[in-house]
């Protein structure tokens, strides 16, 4: 290609026709590269979603054995909300609390790793990711024994004044939120680290030079500049935490069940496919509404 252009340019007298613009042939290349991903999403996201939407509108009087008929039963959604709104609220609440705790724990950690850790940085990052080397399920089971009634943590609290002797952590909302925080903390720390690592220390010096006390420097400079990380981190934590059912299953009781547990049992135990599908869409809608109002409030277009 290059050689061809070269000979044309060297042609005497400049009478040779101009070479075709070499860019034209490449114009479809980006789309070609997009194709595998696009196909994948079409097959494994769009098609199932449409199918799930269809399922959510089936007549619930049908069954797996007898088959379902498409009745456009929008009432399924109303029924699901009436029956399971506490689980939806609880999911949002637990995930919200876990996200806030993750942010409070994760921000100083990410800040330290990004700005102050020096040569320990890579080791500390590996430590943040290390839990992923064991499966989610096993780690959550480990928390079950850590928080168990005769475990050391519960024992410690029981030895404190103002805690009754039958105080327990396992099978309480506290245990479920603890599990969520533990499991999703890396999803908060890593995006925060990525933005804080790029934070220009000279801006912090400049703010100090302009009479800002350290707390003000954080509020007026560090935090606004790390908002992309905060937003990414909270979304990556909140969204999967809201749909999680392992933590509630292993660390809680039916009293702590989240919407994920309900969907799980509707699909696999009660075999009520239309309701399970309706609940799935309700969860998706709830998360979308919350995420969009959050992004609007946090104003992503201001930063980034």
């Amino acid at each position, binding site marked *: 290609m290059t050689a061809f252009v070269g000979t044309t340019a060297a042609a005497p007298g400049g009478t040779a026709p101009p070479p075709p613009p070499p860019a034209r042939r490449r114009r479809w290349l980006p789309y070609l590269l997009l194709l595998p991903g696009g196909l994948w999403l079409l097959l494994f996201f769009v098609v199932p979603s449409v199918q799930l939407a269809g399922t959510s509108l089936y007549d619930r009087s049908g069954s797996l054995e007898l088959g379902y008929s498409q009745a456009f039963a929008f009432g399924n959604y109303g029924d699901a909300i009436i029956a399971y709104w506490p689980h939806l609220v609880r999911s949002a609440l637990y995930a919200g609390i876990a996200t806030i705790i993750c942010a409070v724990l994760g921000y100083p950690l990410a800040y330290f790793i990004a700005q102050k850790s020096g040569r320990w940085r890579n080791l500390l990052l590996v430590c943040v990711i290390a839990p992923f080397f064991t499966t989610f399920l096993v780690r959550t089971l480990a928390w079950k024994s850590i928080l168990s009634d005769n475990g050391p943590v519960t024992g410690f609290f029981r030895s404190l004044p103002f805690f009754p002797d039958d105080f327990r952590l396992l099978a309480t909302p506290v245990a479920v939120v603890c599990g969520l925080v533990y499991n999703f903390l890396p999803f908060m720390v890593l995006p925060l680290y990525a933005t804080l690592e790029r934070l*220009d220390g*000279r*801006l912090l*010096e*400049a*703010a*100090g*030079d*302009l*009479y*800002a*006390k350290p707390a*003000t420097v954080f509020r*007026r*400079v560090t935090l*606004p*500049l790390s908002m992309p990380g905060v937003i990414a981190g909270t979304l990556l934590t909140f969204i999967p935490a809201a749909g999680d059912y392992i933590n509630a299953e292993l660390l809680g009781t039916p009293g702590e069940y989240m919407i994920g547990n309900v969907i799980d049992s509707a699909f696999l135990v009660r075999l009520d496919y239309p309701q399970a599908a309706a609940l799935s869409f309700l969860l998706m809608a709830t998360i979308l509404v919350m995420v969009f109002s959050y992004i609007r409030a946090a104003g992503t277009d*201001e*930063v980034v």
Partner: protein
Amino acid sequence: MADDLVLENVTKQFGGVTAVDDLSLTVPEGSFFALLGASGCGKTTTLRMVAGLEELSSGTVRLGDRDITGLRPYKRPVNTVFQSYALFPHLTVEDNIAFGLKQRGVKDTKKKVAEMLELVQLPAFGKRKPAQLSGGQQQRIALARALVNEPKVLLLDEPLGALDLKLRRQMQIELKRIQTEVGTTFLHVTHDQEEAMWMADTVAVMTEGKIAQLGSPTDIYEFPSSPFVANFLGQSNLFAAEVSGTAGDDLLLSAHGGRFAAPSSRAHSADGRVWLGVRPEKVRLALPGEDAPAGHNQVHGVLTDTCYAGVSTEYLLKTPWGQEMSVFSANAAAGEPLQPGTEVVAHWYPPHSFVLARQSGEGDEVMRYSADPLGVAP
């Protein structure tokens, strides 16, 4: 005066390295003071200690009668213009400038911000974000953001370093104008000797954490105190010489078999081993047939290089003892520049000489190989 900035015996060590070594200096209120030095000489560290961004290892920093040595940066009545500008990317130009005012509880920032934008000649740029400004504009905003707080001392850390040459010249004039207009003390750190000479009332040349020489640009340039300063600020021809006596107000020197004179008032050292120095632009060239003016110091040589630079021609000539000497000749007269290979006599008026102390060992080698050893020729 009331608000002179005074550094007393200031030392800063990083690990085992001494960046600033027992430095004392006074920056008079209202002056434009330049700290000039090569990178790593401790000038920026000195500035950062005044700003409170580095802690002193020992010594004191005072502003007037007030000891500010231990004060946190946000409590010091000084502001900095950073080399990288360090404008807050998430704030508009207006908010950047108002930042310091807001921290100090100033309610109505609008008017002051507008005044500052006027001062730096960017009145219409208040609503923009820093990323939408050119380097020169960002530089002006950084200046406005610091000056709006009416600091006792404005610290400038190589503020023009990132600008291209033309813009830098323009900003130098601008900075000088603004300094004259607001009357604030400017402490300017730079490695650009022309910039320092051009703008500052007083220049402190720094090397290895110490001040090599402090004075007005003219004083330092015309009468440098050490070979380092003589070559850091402009160029100098230095000849290893020895003092052989005095004649009236003049010091008599012998070097490489020749005799030279220099006024005693222009000697930093009046006996023993010395350097005889002269600036290239003070030296004239004569052809061997012509007579150099009587009483001028003379050095014979052969031109090795002629470099025509428009306003002047820069000649390099080789002395009989093998040293290179440079001569700048203003292209004021008609005629072609002299060609390499020409034998010439370089001569200069003795009061243009300066005499510096020379340590034993320095320059001796050149003397030993001189074609006409010391003391043999008349």
